[in-house]
């Protein structure tokens, strides 16, 4: 009997059973294992690990009616299958094309699509990937925790953090996770690639997630601070206006002049960061209001002349 057949039979047996199977029951019900207790055990252990590596949720649980209590193996059918998105052929094709353009390092997106109905071609010639995203080890567990409203712990710097993740975000070339920090009692954001060791599930999240989820990575530098909040008006010249409008969002623009220049309104809680941002435009931008920020800028510039 081939190994493939044995693995398929083992999977079927574990899915079929309503209660966990003792190891000797597995030996009796699944053909193709070698004779000899040790040889069987080694072979079964390897098979079980292979199934788990593929993502098959093989669980170990107490077997009812055993005395002394013993544990056995099974696979819960609902856990095995997950929800079915029922993708149509054109939807599979569109996602297939997307998965060839944008890839996660070390993650087989095509494998996922096979499980969702197969690889459907779009007929569009491949241009090569447009982006390869890094895949830090914590990414999958953090996404699952955010999705299922679970709390997790992980090492970060010198600390162990306890977080109820809300969102994972890829921005500026990195993955971030934002959520409720149970120790600090407030929203916090972490770089996923700086997490040390495993992300461990610790149970259900206690804090309700915010209804309108703020995307912390979208916060501009001048919004990350504890200065007294103030609204700044900044004039930006025409040749820089399209970039600035795109970067800040059309909502930020409060005035557009005939020459193409714009005035943007920015809510500031970090004044130093605002100054840095305005300085990136050199002489193509100017703080109009409030007077204190305008004066702060002129003082700063005068100090550079000495």
């Amino acid at each position: 009997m081939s190994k493939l057949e044995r693995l398929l039979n083992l999977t079927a047996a574990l899915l079929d059973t309503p209660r966990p199977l003792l190891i000797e029951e597995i030996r009796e019900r699944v053909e193709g294992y070698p004779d000899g207790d040790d040889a069987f055990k080694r072979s079964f252990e390897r098979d079980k690990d292979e199934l788990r590596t593929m993502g098959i949720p093989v669980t170990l649980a107490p077997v009812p009616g055993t005395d002394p209590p013993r544990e056995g193996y099974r696979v819960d059918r609902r856990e095995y299958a997950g929800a079915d998105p029922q993708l149509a052929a054109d939807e599979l094709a569109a996602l297939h094309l997307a998965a060839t353009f944008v890839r996660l390092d070390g993650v087989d997106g095509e494998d996922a699509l096979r499980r969702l109905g197969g690889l459907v071609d779009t007929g569009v010639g491949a241009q090569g990937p447009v982006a390869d995203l890094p895949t830090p080890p914590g990414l999958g567990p953090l996404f699952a925790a955010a999705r299922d409203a679970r709390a997790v712990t992980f090492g970060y710097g010198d600390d162990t953090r306890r977080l109820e993740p809300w969102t994972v975000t890829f921005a500026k070339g990195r993955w971030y996770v934002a959520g409720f920090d149970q120790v600090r009692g407030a929203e916090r954001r972490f770089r996923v690639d700086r997490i040390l060791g495993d992300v461990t599930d610790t149970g259900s999240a206690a804090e309700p997630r915010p209804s309108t989820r703020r995307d912390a990575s979208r916060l501009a530098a001048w919004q990350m601070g504890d200065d007294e909040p103030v609204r700044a008006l900044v004039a930006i010249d025409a040749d820089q206006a399209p970039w600035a409008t795109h970067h800040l969002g059309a909502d930020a623009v409060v005035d557009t002049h005939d020459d193409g220049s714009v005035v943007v309104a920015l809510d500031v809680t970090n004044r130093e960061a605002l100054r840095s941002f305005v300085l990136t435009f050199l002489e193509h931008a100017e703080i109009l209001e409030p007077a204190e920020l305008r004066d702060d800028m002129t003082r700063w510039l005068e100090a550079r002349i000495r």
Partner: protein
Amino acid sequence: MSRFTSRERLNRLLAVIPWVVAQDGVALDDVAHRFGYPRDRLEADLLEVVQYVGVYPFTPDTLIEVEIVDDMVWIRYADWFTRPLRVDPAQAVALLAAGQSMLSITGDDDGPLLRGLTKLGAAMGAGDGTVPLQVRLGEGAEEVMAVLRQAVDEHRMVDIDHYVYSRDEWVQRRIEPSRFFADEGQWYVAAFCRRAEDQRVFRVDRIGSATLTDISFTPPDTPDATPVFSADDTTEVRLLLRPEAAWVADQYPNNGVTTRPDGSIEVAMPVTGRSWLERLLLRLGPSVEVLDSGWFDDRLTADAARRILARYR
């Protein structure tokens, strides 16, 4: 094919079996193509393996039934494999991230991608239908990205208005775009620049406008491996950074870093454009001292400060 291991065949069959069951008769060639399963191998595995799979006591009524007639295949009684194995969280992130990214590039508001992504989100997102994932590969105007992608696909030249950040000036160029890609949070287009007569890489958010021409070009045979940052015409500038400005040494390419006993950092950096250096020095203010200004004059920071101050007077 040695790479097609037992585990990989098992993995594929766990996707193949439920799909074939649901079709009620489908061509073997279709199955082979759709699941990337070599046709002969597939037929053999179905007839010689899957057909004998079942549960104890392996009487005919507990076995899967496989029927192949004239290249059509039916699978019945595969009760344990009526649903495919779930997609794991990292795979879910991969698909959702790919879909979201493509949507942001193509701006496709009403197509199969959005429909598929919505279904995926409902199946793989949180219970309330939201997806706790956001992906932004880079910044750039949608119109510009659409033109560049079309140009890459159709091998057509594009006229761009490009902002040279390091020199603070706008330059018109005609380019032959060969690749559109994201890296480190920015969109780029790799192209042959007819003005420079050389390969160049442009950051998309610094392209103010892009106009598609009707002129086609022959794309290079091999996708270029142009580095994003090419170091032509640079001068070396040496800076002394106070500890609070130490990030500069991490963030930008440099030719060497020395930490002084007081914690300040001496860094030698290749610099191309005057404007780039002006911005950096103005932002850092008292946290930086210029030890050697390379080919720039020593009054660089003061001159830039004066130009900006003129606006405020």
